[in-house]
């Protein structure tokens, strides 16, 4: 147009050090906001170690990690679902399905037992994913129906819960549950591996990009030409498989014999862990590391209640509920400080 002088268009070029200061401030705040749960975890663990003598013992920490690994694996899958803008309430039932099937087919050998359990769990995820993606039905309701229906299926195959199939004798896959590496139980390593792979898939693969874009704004993702339906379907399969894996490990650890009602309300723990980890239920934003910290927080709190106090069951409930609230409020405050303010 009429401009004679060359005005630089570059906006954020590093002039006068101001942009550098901004970048530093941003890096710090986003570090805190993305890792609010990690920060809270560190605080709680430190406080726990100082205040409750038996908490910090290696045995106890190992046990906390082991206990956390089952919900942890489920929560890893849930993270994908929630980042994609959905939710999966069916994981507790799917977990039960895999637990029972893997024990039921144990006589056919480890491979078949694990394979069938994972297939069943993956299939549950696939069906739900297809319904949600193709028919555009709300995930909350579809997976709520999944929660009910799959639990019904579990009752059905156990003859109204009469059977508690068990592994007789030793089977190879039991090592998945009972084994240990460097004194730490195999399920913990498996959970870490799942989180590692999950982190990679979310942040380092096109699929992960697609999950985040779909969750951020589904119609925008469609307009950008991303495979929205496929992505939505896959996240539920991933979630189903994670729940299934967790169920298989449960059978492996306990030798089977679980009740048909096992895994009741696990979805709430998993969702809580994911959300405490800083993932937004509205989708788009979330982190694997956060979820891991969220899961550990839940179990550390639970353990501290057992280790630190001798409470009756209802006071115990009050304490863990309040603890949960404090943690989420703290986490929200940390992330908000760093994130954009809304007034």
């Amino acid at each position, binding site marked *: 147009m009429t401009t004679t002088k060359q005005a630089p268009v570059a906006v954020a070029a590093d002039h006068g050090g101001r942009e550098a200061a901004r970048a530093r401030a941003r890096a710090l705040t986003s570090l805190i906001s993305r890792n609010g749960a990690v920060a809270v975890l560190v605080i709680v663990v430190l406080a726990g170690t100082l205040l409750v003598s038996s908490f910090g013992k290696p045995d106890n920490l190992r046990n906390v990690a082991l206990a956390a690994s089952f919900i942890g694996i489920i929560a890893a899958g849930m993270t994908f679902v929630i980042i994609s803008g959905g939710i999966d309430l069916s994981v507790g039932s799917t977990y039960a399905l895999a637990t029972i099937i893997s024990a039921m087919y144990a006589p056919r050998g480890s491979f078949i037992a694990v394979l069938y359990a994972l297939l069943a769990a993956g299939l549950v995820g696939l069906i739900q994913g297809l319904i949600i993606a193709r028919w555009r039905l709300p995930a909350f309701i579809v997976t709520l129906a999944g929660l009910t229906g799959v639990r019904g299926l579990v009752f059905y195959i156990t003859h109204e*819960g009469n059977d508690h199939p068990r592994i007789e004798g030793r089977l190879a896959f039991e090592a998945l549950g009972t084994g240990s590496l460097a004194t730490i139980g195999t399920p913990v390593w498996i959970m870490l591996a799942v989180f590692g792979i999950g982190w990679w898939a979310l942040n380092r693969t096109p699929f992960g990009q697609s999950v985040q874009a779909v969750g951020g704004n589904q119609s925008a993702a469609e307009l950008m030409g991303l495979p929205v339906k496929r992505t939505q379907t896959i996240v539920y399969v991933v979630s189903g498989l994670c729940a299934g894996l967790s169920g298989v490990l449960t059978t492996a650890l*306990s030798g089977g014999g679980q009740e048909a009602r096992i895994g009741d309300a696990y979805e709430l723990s998993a969702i809580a862990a994911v959300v405490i980890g800083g993932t937004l239920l509205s989708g788009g934003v979330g982190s694997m590391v956060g979820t891991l910290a969220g899961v550990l927080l839940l179990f550390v709190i*639970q353990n501290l209640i057992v280790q630190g106090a001798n409470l009756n*069951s209802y006071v115990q409930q009050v304490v863990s509920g309040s603890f949960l609230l404090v943690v989420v409020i703290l986490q929200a405050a940390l992330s908000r400080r760093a994130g954009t303010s809304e007034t």
Partner: protein
Amino acid sequence: ALLTACSTGSNSGSTTDDSSAAPVATALGSANAGGVPAAITAAGGTELLTRPKGEGVSAEYGPMCKGSDLGIGKIDFKKDTIGWAQSEKEANPFRIASTKSQIEAAKAKGWKLLTTNAQSNVQQENSDIKGMIDKGAKAIIFSPINSTGLGDAIAYAKSKKVAMIPVDRNITGVQGCKDVGPQLGSDFVEQGRRAADAMIKATGGKAKLAILLGASGVNVTDDRTAGFLDQLKAKNASGIEVVFQQTGDFTREKGKSVTETMLRAHPDVTAIYAENDEMGLGALAALDDAGKSGTDKVHIVSIDGTKGAVQAIVDGNFDAVIESNPAFGPASQAALEAYVNGDGAPAVTITTDNQYDSSNAAEALSSGKAY
């Protein structure tokens, strides 16, 4: 193949493939050689003990377990702590009484007792038990959520040389004294049988019967159903026709709403078997609203022996209540003492359960036997 797995998984070793309820139904009935019921064998009992039984004990099965066999050292109960792991919320009379009994017995002996509650979550119970062991508990008395499924905690206790005493529900699939210490339990199948007997007596063997099942997938439910139906068959009570079977989730509210609906579809029901007192009382509330309460209109038999239900007998609304005695505190702690410090305790002890009807209900209330 599917069913092979099921049957090997359930309480008995029987391999009937046709009916899922069959393995449990035959559990206590089919005595093995030596007169030991299969369910007891599954819990590690191999022989019926003939030594004189203490009060409240209905049967004891050997071998005798000694803590030292598992390398468990003596416990100094004045200094060491022990743990009590409850399986479900202390929110119904049974669980409240069961925890209270442990706490009071420990207090009476001056023992230090840690307590936890797994809120019906098996994984939680595993980590509760392990948590108490990590906190230094030398022995754990626990009420298992399920007869199986606590393998992780049991293995951990074994590795830490901690004594494990299951109460009220037996741990099955174990070898006597090898995996856990002495077990003290009620016999839920037997409770079902006795309920059937009481029902036959109350109705004169002729009734249109509705069953309020306990929560689905819980083995107490299975046992009480199996025992009941089995006994009806065994007693040839073909006049009792089961027209309705629905879960009432062991709660009063569900017991009531299910009964309300049932009364619409089956107004001709003349008897109700409730697998716990709470559901029975819920059913009673529904009958009352419909103007049908009273044993002259609808018979009710339930299991547990709580005050409310025993009172209902006195009021003429229930026919009979089979007790499921939750007070394992003194007996289990005595067994623990014998197991670790004394000369052993039987692998499986079955406690005596009372039974109330119009003849003894008032007395049970006044003496405080009903909890």
